[in-house]
């Protein structure tokens, strides 16, 4: 590894993870500054209150609270599953959410790049129009249409009860596939990904290297693909980060277990340790994706090594 590459990677790593630590510190500061106290929700007895404050670490100084949050010492759940280790809760939920997130991310990449690479934008309004609907609305539309369509068909004797009926309560391949599709397409995510890839492709198509090849009548697809790698790394990381947020909605709409649903429940029931743990894990996921994207960019494009 060259010195410039090593320095660039070190600089990017420090920037990405430094930002993450700053964000988690800000989260802990906000929690400490928030009005009211979580213990007030549980008891007014001064003795019990003092014990809970000590047990839950609410009296810990800021630096200790930040180190605990970063170190994965999140303690036990307060209200969601009282007494359960938060690290285990969040870890199990993450494992359940991973296939959904990964499926949606890969679908976005494949469909997005394929769509953006089309030279003729045939009926280009179709997918963007669909993609404008929020995740919950797409999920709602599909659930209503499939349930009522199947119900009518069963009533008319055209259909036996399908294995997936009725959505979203029955765990089935269709429910999982719909969740992946909705997460990938909804809330304008796929549309903005396609627009961004197309815009970068247009820039590269106008670059002198590509125009020179075109003038000589030589194929440019491989060069374009290579030029797109650094851009694609950043766009894919951004999209991946946004999908973490989408998990919350999709898992609720499709009644699926996972990290998104756990985070939502923790927010609703004000289970602070689970909220903090979910926030830290999300920040870590975002930072990890950005770091991977930076590494890919710096490795693929030597011109970026001096700017780190």
């Amino acid at each position, binding site marked *: 590894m060259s010195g410039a590459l090593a320095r660039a990677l070190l600089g990017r790593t420090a920037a990405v993870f430094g930002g993450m630590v700053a964000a988690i510190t800000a989260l802990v500061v906000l929690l400490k500054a928030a009005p009211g106290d979580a213990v007030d929700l549980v008891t007014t007895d001064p003795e019990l209150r003092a014990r809970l404050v000590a047990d839950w670490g609410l009296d810990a100084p800021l630096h200790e609270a930040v180190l605990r949050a970063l170190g994965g010492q999140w303690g036990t759940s307060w209200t969601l599953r009282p007494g359960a280790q938060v690290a285990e809760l969040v870890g199990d939920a993450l494992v359940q959410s991973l296939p959904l997130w990964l499926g949606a991310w890969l679908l976005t990449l494949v469909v997005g790049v394929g769509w953006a690479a089309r030279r003729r934008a045939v009926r280009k309004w179709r997918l963007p129009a669909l993609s404008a609907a*929020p995740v919950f609305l797409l999920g709602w539309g599909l659930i209503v249409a499939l349930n009522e369509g199947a119900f009518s068909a069963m009533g008319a004797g055209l259909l036996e009860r399908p294995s997936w009926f009725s959505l979203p309560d029955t765990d089935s391949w269709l429910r999982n596939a719909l969740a992946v599709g909705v997460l990938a397409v909804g809330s304008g995510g796929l549309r903005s990904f396609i627009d961004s890839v197309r815009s970068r492709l247009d820039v590269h198509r106008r670059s002198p290297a590509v125009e020179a090849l075109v003038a000589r009548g030589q194929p440019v697809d491989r060069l374009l693909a290579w030029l797109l790698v650094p851009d694609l790394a950043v766009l894919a990381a951004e999209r991946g980060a946004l999908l973490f947020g989408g998990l919350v909605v999709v898992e609720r709409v499709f009644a699926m277990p996972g990290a998104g649903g756990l985070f939502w429940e923790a927010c609703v029931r004000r289970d602070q340790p689970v909220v903090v743990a979910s*926030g830290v894990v999300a920040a870590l996921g975002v930072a990890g994706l950005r770091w991977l994207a930076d590494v890919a960019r710096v490795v693929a494009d030597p011109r970026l090594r001096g700017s780190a």
Partner: protein
Amino acid sequence: MRRDVWAWAVLLAALFARLLSAVGGYDIVADVDPGNAGASPAAGAWLGTDALGRDVAWRMVKATDAFVVPAVWAAVVSVGLGGALGTLGGWFGGSVERASGAVAGLPGAAPRFVLVLLLATIFAPTPGVLALGCGLAFVPQTAAEVGARLGAMRRTDFVEASLVHGVGVPRVLGEHLLWTGCRLLLARLGMRAAAFFVVVETTLAYLGELGVQEPLPSFGNMVASGLVDGRLHLVSRLAPAIALWLLLAALFHLDGVLARQDAQEAA
């Protein structure tokens, strides 16, 4: 331009509905009429009635209370804070650019929806907190895009010439760079923050608990009630969903229109 008329019309309709909601005198409690539940669209109730006999059209008008004004605030936060940080970084460059970039990047450490939920949990899921969260969620992007453009324009000959000829920095920065060079960019980024607020508000209302609660209407909780109550007329069930989809499609479409105009002006 003619192809964009529908999007402007949808946006104007949302603003008009908000105005109508303020002056129309619709009473969400007095409108309850269980005897008229699930009525078909008619002259008295254009879009039919819901499971409690309430006029769906009026409730849709009232639902704009939940998002029109807070969405504007989300745009103001995003453009104000992100634009200010981007301007600082783009104009001064160097360590100021790095510092403003680090500050602007803080909200971007968490996914946007997660950031809003965190703020709603720590404080309260009020429209103000949600608007602040949605605005903050777009600060990193706004600061980065404004900073990059200002940084490039700062080094152009006309800026150097203006400064050498004694034109003040506020005028060069405000009129020549921000207004002439960045107004469409800022409008587009503000529109994105506003659209995100609409998505967040309706999503939270659909999911319940942290969003607008019955009997107050939101497109989100109206869609949710249409999901569980199949006895309602199809028009009554679909109307809030279609209105929400149209509004977001219009905002996304205008985002694209502004982006194209911005690119043309830049060229």
